[in-house]
Protein backbone atom coordinates (compact mmCIF):
# COMPACT_ATOMS: atom_id res chain seq x y z
CA UNK A 1 0.00 0.00 0.00
CA UNK A 2 1.49 3.22 -1.13
CA UNK A 3 0.75 6.79 -0.30
CA UNK A 4 2.08 9.53 -2.53
CA UNK A 5 5.84 9.86 -2.36
CA UNK A 6 7.70 13.09 -2.17
CA UNK A 7 10.38 13.80 -4.69
CA UNK A 8 12.49 16.78 -5.54
CA UNK A 9 13.19 15.83 -9.09
CA UNK A 10 11.05 15.15 -12.09
CA UNK A 11 11.99 12.68 -14.83
CA UNK A 12 12.03 15.54 -17.34
CA UNK A 13 14.13 17.84 -15.21
CA UNK A 14 17.12 17.54 -17.49
CA UNK A 15 15.00 19.05 -20.25
CA UNK A 16 13.88 22.04 -18.27
CA UNK A 17 15.55 24.69 -16.17
CA UNK A 18 14.33 23.15 -12.97
CA UNK A 19 16.22 25.73 -10.97
CA UNK A 20 13.65 28.25 -12.18
CA UNK A 21 10.60 26.28 -11.04
CA UNK A 22 7.94 26.90 -10.00
CA UNK A 23 7.38 28.86 -13.18
CA UNK A 24 5.43 32.10 -13.38
CA UNK A 25 2.33 30.63 -14.92
CA UNK A 26 -0.93 30.79 -12.99
CA UNK A 27 -2.50 27.73 -11.44
CA UNK A 28 -4.40 25.85 -14.12
CA UNK A 29 -2.63 27.61 -16.98
CA UNK A 30 -2.21 25.27 -19.93
CA UNK A 31 1.18 26.46 -21.13
CA UNK A 32 3.10 24.12 -18.86
CA UNK A 33 1.24 21.14 -20.27
CA UNK A 34 2.27 21.99 -23.80
CA UNK A 35 5.81 22.67 -22.74
CA UNK A 36 5.86 19.23 -21.24
CA UNK A 37 4.80 17.74 -24.56
CA UNK A 38 7.59 19.64 -26.24
CA UNK A 39 10.15 18.46 -23.70
CA UNK A 40 9.01 14.90 -24.11
CA UNK A 41 9.15 15.18 -27.88
CA UNK A 42 12.73 16.44 -27.68
CA UNK A 43 13.60 13.51 -25.49
CA UNK A 44 12.11 11.05 -27.93
CA UNK A 45 13.36 12.81 -31.05
CA UNK A 46 16.68 11.07 -31.17
CA UNK A 47 18.15 14.45 -31.99
CA UNK A 48 20.73 15.55 -29.48
CA UNK A 49 19.44 18.06 -26.98
CA UNK A 50 22.31 20.30 -28.11
CA UNK A 51 20.77 20.62 -31.54
CA UNK A 52 17.36 21.66 -30.36
CA UNK A 53 16.79 25.38 -30.07
CA UNK A 54 13.65 27.13 -28.94
CA UNK A 55 12.77 30.68 -29.92
CA UNK A 56 9.92 32.54 -28.27
CA UNK A 57 8.35 35.94 -28.53
CA UNK A 58 6.80 37.87 -25.68
CA UNK A 59 3.80 36.70 -23.71
CA UNK A 60 3.12 34.11 -21.06
CA UNK A 61 3.62 31.44 -23.70
CA UNK A 62 6.77 33.20 -24.79
CA UNK A 63 8.26 32.50 -21.41
CA UNK A 64 8.71 28.90 -22.48
CA UNK A 65 12.12 29.75 -23.88
CA UNK A 66 13.22 30.62 -20.38
CA UNK A 67 12.20 27.27 -18.94
CA UNK A 68 13.58 24.86 -21.51
CA UNK A 69 17.02 23.59 -20.71
CA UNK A 70 18.22 23.92 -24.27
CA UNK A 71 19.60 26.83 -26.24
CA UNK A 72 16.79 29.31 -26.01
CA UNK A 73 16.02 32.79 -27.26
CA UNK A 74 13.35 35.00 -25.81
CA UNK A 75 13.11 37.72 -28.41
CA UNK A 76 10.67 40.59 -28.95
CA UNK A 77 6.93 40.56 -29.29
CA UNK A 78 5.99 39.13 -32.65
CA UNK A 79 9.50 38.55 -33.97
CA UNK A 80 10.27 35.03 -32.86
CA UNK A 81 9.66 33.68 -36.36
CA UNK A 82 12.04 35.91 -38.31
CA UNK A 83 14.64 35.45 -35.60
CA UNK A 84 14.20 31.70 -35.93
CA UNK A 85 14.35 31.93 -39.72
CA UNK A 86 17.69 33.69 -39.49
CA UNK A 87 19.00 31.19 -37.00
CA UNK A 88 17.85 28.16 -38.98
CA UNK A 89 19.28 29.41 -42.26
CA UNK A 90 22.54 30.32 -40.59
CA UNK A 91 22.88 26.90 -39.00
CA UNK A 92 20.66 24.42 -40.80
CA UNK A 93 21.75 21.49 -38.63
CA UNK A 94 19.75 22.91 -35.74
CA UNK A 95 16.20 21.85 -35.02
CA UNK A 96 14.56 25.21 -34.47
CA UNK A 97 11.20 25.36 -32.76
CA UNK A 98 9.23 28.53 -32.29
CA UNK A 99 7.10 28.25 -29.19
CA UNK A 100 4.88 31.22 -28.56
CA UNK A 101 1.39 32.54 -28.01
CA UNK A 102 -1.54 33.27 -30.28
CA UNK A 103 -1.15 37.00 -29.82
CA UNK A 104 2.56 36.97 -30.39
CA UNK A 105 2.38 34.80 -33.48
CA UNK A 106 -0.85 35.92 -35.12
CA UNK A 107 -1.47 39.50 -33.96
CA UNK A 108 1.74 41.50 -33.99
CA UNK A 109 3.64 38.63 -35.58
CA UNK A 110 1.08 37.76 -38.24
CA UNK A 111 3.11 38.99 -41.16
CA UNK A 112 6.13 36.88 -40.35
CA UNK A 113 3.90 33.91 -39.76
CA UNK A 114 2.33 33.97 -43.21
CA UNK A 115 5.59 34.74 -44.95
CA UNK A 116 7.53 31.99 -43.22
CA UNK A 117 4.70 29.63 -44.15
CA UNK A 118 4.77 30.89 -47.73
CA UNK A 119 8.50 30.35 -47.99
CA UNK A 120 8.10 27.02 -46.25
CA UNK A 121 11.11 27.64 -44.03
CA UNK A 122 12.02 24.53 -42.09
CA UNK A 123 11.01 25.71 -38.64
CA UNK A 124 8.57 24.10 -36.24
CA UNK A 125 5.95 26.38 -34.78
CA UNK A 126 4.00 25.50 -31.65
CA UNK A 127 1.29 28.07 -31.06
CA UNK A 128 -0.37 28.20 -27.65
CA UNK A 129 -3.82 29.49 -28.39
CA UNK A 130 -5.49 30.64 -25.20
CA UNK A 131 -7.83 33.02 -27.05
CA UNK A 132 -6.39 36.13 -25.51
CA UNK A 133 -3.35 38.08 -24.42
CA UNK A 134 -2.70 36.47 -21.09
CA UNK A 135 0.45 38.30 -20.16
CA UNK A 136 -0.98 41.77 -20.37
CA UNK A 137 -4.13 40.85 -18.51
CA UNK A 138 -6.74 39.24 -20.67
CA UNK A 139 -7.26 41.51 -23.64
CA UNK A 140 -9.01 40.11 -26.69
CA UNK A 141 -6.90 39.23 -29.70
CA UNK A 142 -7.19 37.76 -33.20
CA UNK A 143 -8.18 34.36 -31.85
CA UNK A 144 -10.85 35.54 -29.44
CA UNK A 145 -14.28 34.35 -30.55
CA UNK A 146 -16.70 37.05 -31.60
CA UNK A 147 -18.82 38.11 -28.66
CA UNK A 148 -16.45 36.78 -26.03
CA UNK A 149 -15.31 39.24 -23.41
CA UNK A 150 -11.93 40.54 -22.52
CA UNK A 151 -10.52 43.48 -20.65
CA UNK A 152 -10.50 45.48 -23.88
CA UNK A 153 -13.88 44.11 -24.93
CA UNK A 154 -16.11 44.64 -21.91
CA UNK A 155 -19.19 44.58 -24.12
CA UNK A 156 -18.07 41.56 -26.10
CA UNK A 157 -15.55 41.22 -28.89
CA UNK A 158 -16.85 42.80 -32.12
CA UNK A 159 -14.28 41.02 -34.29
CA UNK A 160 -14.24 37.65 -35.95
CA UNK A 161 -11.31 35.42 -35.05
CA UNK A 162 -8.83 33.87 -37.42
CA UNK A 163 -9.32 30.32 -38.37
CA UNK A 164 -5.67 29.47 -37.98
CA UNK A 165 -5.38 26.10 -39.73
CA UNK A 166 -7.19 27.51 -42.75
CA UNK A 167 -5.04 30.63 -42.78
CA UNK A 168 -1.85 28.64 -42.43
CA UNK A 169 -2.90 26.33 -45.22
CA UNK A 170 -3.61 29.26 -47.49
CA UNK A 171 -0.31 30.89 -46.63
CA UNK A 172 1.59 27.76 -47.61
CA UNK A 173 2.43 25.78 -44.49
CA UNK A 174 3.57 22.23 -45.11
CA UNK A 175 1.95 20.69 -42.09
CA UNK A 176 -0.81 22.03 -39.86
CA UNK A 177 -2.64 20.51 -36.95
CA UNK A 178 -4.64 21.52 -33.95
CA UNK A 179 -4.88 19.94 -30.52
CA UNK A 180 -5.77 21.01 -27.01
CA UNK A 181 -4.11 20.62 -23.65
CA UNK A 182 -6.17 17.52 -23.07
CA UNK A 183 -4.57 15.91 -26.13
CA UNK A 184 -1.22 15.53 -24.48
CA UNK A 185 -0.17 12.37 -26.25
CA UNK A 186 -1.28 13.61 -29.64
CA UNK A 187 0.41 16.95 -29.12
CA UNK A 188 3.65 15.30 -28.15
CA UNK A 189 3.44 12.88 -31.06
CA UNK A 190 2.67 15.66 -33.46
CA UNK A 191 5.56 17.83 -32.34
CA UNK A 192 7.74 14.77 -32.69
CA UNK A 193 6.33 14.18 -36.14
CA UNK A 194 6.97 17.79 -37.11
CA UNK A 195 10.67 17.34 -36.31
CA UNK A 196 10.73 14.80 -39.10
CA UNK A 197 8.58 16.74 -41.49
CA UNK A 198 10.76 19.17 -43.42
CA UNK A 199 9.39 22.62 -44.08
CA UNK A 200 7.17 24.92 -42.17
CA UNK A 201 4.99 23.14 -39.65
CA UNK A 202 2.37 24.71 -37.44
CA UNK A 203 0.78 23.09 -34.45
CA UNK A 204 -1.92 25.04 -32.69
CA UNK A 205 -2.70 23.91 -29.16
CA UNK A 206 -5.74 25.28 -27.41
CA UNK A 207 -4.98 26.00 -23.80
CA UNK A 208 -6.76 27.37 -20.78
CA UNK A 209 -5.86 30.82 -19.53
CA UNK A 210 -8.08 30.90 -16.49
CA UNK A 211 -6.82 34.29 -15.33
CA UNK A 212 -7.35 36.00 -18.64
CA UNK A 213 -9.84 34.45 -20.99
CA UNK A 214 -11.42 32.22 -18.39
CA UNK A 215 -12.15 34.97 -15.90
CA UNK A 216 -13.90 37.16 -18.46
CA UNK A 217 -15.90 34.32 -19.94
CA UNK A 218 -17.26 32.33 -17.04
CA UNK A 219 -14.74 29.56 -17.28
CA UNK A 220 -13.76 29.29 -13.68
CA UNK A 221 -10.45 27.56 -13.87
CA UNK A 222 -8.10 25.55 -16.01
CA UNK A 223 -9.81 22.38 -15.02
CA UNK A 224 -13.16 23.56 -16.34
CA UNK A 225 -11.65 24.49 -19.67
CA UNK A 226 -9.93 21.10 -19.84
CA UNK A 227 -13.29 19.45 -19.32
CA UNK A 228 -14.80 21.60 -21.99
CA UNK A 229 -12.12 20.35 -24.40
CA UNK A 230 -12.77 16.80 -23.38
CA UNK A 231 -16.47 17.18 -24.00
CA UNK A 232 -16.46 19.17 -27.20
CA UNK A 233 -13.46 18.12 -29.22
CA UNK A 234 -14.01 16.08 -32.34
CA UNK A 235 -11.18 14.47 -34.20
CA UNK A 236 -11.10 15.19 -37.87
CA UNK A 237 -10.04 12.51 -40.25
CA UNK A 238 -8.73 13.79 -43.51
CA UNK A 239 -11.05 15.99 -45.46
CA UNK A 240 -14.29 15.52 -43.64
CA UNK A 241 -14.54 19.04 -42.33
CA UNK A 242 -14.83 22.18 -44.39
CA UNK A 243 -12.14 24.68 -43.68
CA UNK A 244 -14.73 27.23 -42.65
CA UNK A 245 -15.93 25.03 -39.82
CA UNK A 246 -12.59 25.10 -38.09
CA UNK A 247 -13.45 28.38 -36.45
CA UNK A 248 -13.59 27.94 -32.72
CA UNK A 249 -16.21 29.33 -30.44
CA UNK A 250 -15.61 28.24 -26.89
CA UNK A 251 -18.85 29.79 -25.72
CA UNK A 252 -21.18 27.89 -27.99
CA UNK A 253 -22.09 24.27 -27.91
CA UNK A 254 -20.32 23.62 -31.14
CA UNK A 255 -17.75 20.94 -31.81
CA UNK A 256 -14.12 21.95 -31.70
CA UNK A 257 -12.37 20.14 -34.49
CA UNK A 258 -8.92 18.89 -33.77
CA UNK A 259 -6.47 16.80 -35.70
CA UNK A 260 -4.19 17.20 -38.65
CA UNK A 261 -5.46 19.45 -41.42
CA UNK A 262 -2.61 20.01 -43.82
CA UNK A 263 0.08 17.51 -44.70
CA UNK A 264 2.05 18.48 -47.77
CA UNK A 265 5.42 17.65 -49.11
CA UNK A 266 6.59 20.90 -50.63
CA UNK A 267 10.35 21.20 -50.54
CA UNK A 268 11.43 23.54 -47.78
CA UNK A 269 12.99 26.93 -48.46
CA UNK A 270 16.62 26.72 -49.42
CA UNK A 271 18.71 29.81 -49.93
CA UNK A 272 20.47 29.82 -53.24
CA UNK A 273 23.97 28.41 -53.23
CA UNK A 274 25.90 28.20 -56.42
CA UNK A 275 27.70 24.99 -57.08
CA UNK A 276 31.36 25.16 -56.31
CA UNK A 277 30.83 28.09 -54.05
CA UNK A 278 33.79 28.36 -51.80
Amino acid sequence: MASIQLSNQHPLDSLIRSDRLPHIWCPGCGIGIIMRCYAQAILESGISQEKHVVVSGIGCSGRVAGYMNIDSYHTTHGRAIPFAVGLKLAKPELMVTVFSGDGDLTAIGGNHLIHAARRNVDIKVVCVNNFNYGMTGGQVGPTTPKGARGTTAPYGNPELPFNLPYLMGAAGANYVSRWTTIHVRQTKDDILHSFNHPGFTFIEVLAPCPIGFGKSNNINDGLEEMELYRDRCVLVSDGDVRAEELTIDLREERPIYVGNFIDRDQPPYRPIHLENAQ
Partner: protein
Amino acid sequence: MEVYARTPLDLERMTVPRGQVFIILERCKGCEICIRFCPQEVLQVSTGTNAKGYHYPEIAPGKEDACVHCQFCALVCPEFAIFTLEKDGDPA
Protein backbone atom coordinates in the same frame (compact mmCIF):
# COMPACT_ATOMS: atom_id res chain seq x y z
CA MET B 1 -15.26 11.39 -36.99
CA GLU B 2 -14.47 9.98 -33.68
CA VAL B 3 -14.53 11.48 -30.26
CA TYR B 4 -11.01 11.13 -29.27
CA ALA B 5 -10.17 12.80 -26.06
CA ARG B 6 -12.38 10.60 -24.00
CA THR B 7 -10.24 7.53 -24.44
CA PRO B 8 -6.73 8.62 -23.80
CA LEU B 9 -5.73 5.31 -22.31
CA ASP B 10 -5.59 1.75 -23.19
CA LEU B 11 -7.48 0.31 -20.31
CA GLU B 12 -7.37 -3.31 -21.17
CA ARG B 13 -7.01 -5.11 -17.95
CA MET B 14 -4.73 -7.94 -18.77
CA THR B 15 -1.22 -6.64 -18.25
CA VAL B 16 -1.92 -3.53 -16.33
CA PRO B 17 1.21 -2.28 -14.65
CA ARG B 18 1.16 -0.68 -11.28
CA GLY B 19 2.44 2.79 -10.59
CA GLN B 20 3.86 4.67 -7.69
CA VAL B 21 2.88 8.33 -7.64
CA PHE B 22 5.50 10.93 -6.83
CA ILE B 23 5.02 14.60 -6.18
CA ILE B 24 7.35 17.55 -6.02
CA LEU B 25 5.39 19.35 -3.42
CA GLU B 26 6.57 22.90 -3.85
CA ARG B 27 5.92 22.91 -7.58
CA CYS B 28 2.25 22.07 -7.24
CA LYS B 29 -0.21 24.92 -7.72
CA GLY B 30 -3.28 22.95 -6.81
CA CYS B 31 -4.98 23.13 -10.19
CA GLU B 32 -6.53 19.69 -9.61
CA ILE B 33 -6.14 18.71 -13.23
CA CYS B 34 -4.24 15.54 -12.36
CA ILE B 35 -6.92 14.67 -9.88
CA ARG B 36 -9.85 15.11 -12.21
CA PHE B 37 -8.29 13.39 -15.17
CA CYS B 38 -6.86 10.33 -13.50
CA PRO B 39 -8.82 7.53 -15.11
CA GLN B 40 -8.52 5.48 -11.95
CA GLU B 41 -9.55 8.28 -9.63
CA VAL B 42 -6.45 7.57 -7.63
CA LEU B 43 -5.97 11.14 -6.46
CA GLN B 44 -7.81 13.59 -4.28
CA VAL B 45 -7.25 17.13 -3.02
CA SER B 46 -5.19 17.26 0.11
CA THR B 47 -6.36 19.14 3.14
CA GLY B 48 -2.90 20.39 3.86
CA THR B 49 -1.13 23.00 1.73
CA ASN B 50 2.39 23.51 0.57
CA ALA B 51 4.40 26.59 1.48
CA LYS B 52 2.66 28.66 -1.19
CA GLY B 53 -0.69 27.62 0.22
CA TYR B 54 -1.73 25.27 -2.54
CA HIS B 55 -3.64 22.05 -1.97
CA TYR B 56 -1.63 19.37 -3.70
CA PRO B 57 -2.92 15.98 -4.76
CA GLU B 58 -2.74 12.99 -2.49
CA ILE B 59 -3.80 9.38 -2.84
CA ALA B 60 -7.49 8.90 -2.21
CA PRO B 61 -8.39 6.47 0.54
CA GLY B 62 -8.67 2.97 -0.78
CA LYS B 63 -6.79 3.86 -3.95
CA GLU B 64 -3.36 3.08 -2.68
CA ASP B 65 -2.85 0.36 -5.25
CA ALA B 66 -5.09 1.69 -7.97
CA CYS B 67 -2.56 3.57 -10.03
CA VAL B 68 -2.01 1.84 -13.37
CA HIS B 69 1.00 3.98 -14.28
CA CYS B 70 -0.81 5.38 -17.27
CA GLN B 71 1.13 8.60 -16.66
CA PHE B 72 -1.73 10.78 -17.62
CA CYS B 73 -1.40 12.76 -14.40
CA ALA B 74 2.20 13.50 -15.28
CA LEU B 75 1.31 14.42 -18.83
CA VAL B 76 -1.35 16.95 -17.88
CA CYS B 77 0.35 18.51 -14.90
CA PRO B 78 1.37 22.02 -16.02
CA GLU B 79 3.92 22.23 -13.26
CA PHE B 80 6.17 19.21 -13.78
CA ALA B 81 5.08 18.42 -10.24
CA ILE B 82 3.69 14.91 -10.43
CA PHE B 83 4.85 11.70 -12.06
CA THR B 84 4.67 7.99 -11.63
CA LEU B 85 7.18 5.22 -11.78
CA GLU B 86 6.36 1.66 -12.48
CA LYS B 87 6.24 -0.37 -9.34
CA ASP B 88 8.28 -3.50 -9.21
CA GLY B 89 6.55 -6.63 -8.24
CA ASP B 90 3.45 -8.42 -9.17
CA PRO B 91 0.95 -7.17 -11.68
CA ALA B 92 -2.61 -6.94 -10.45
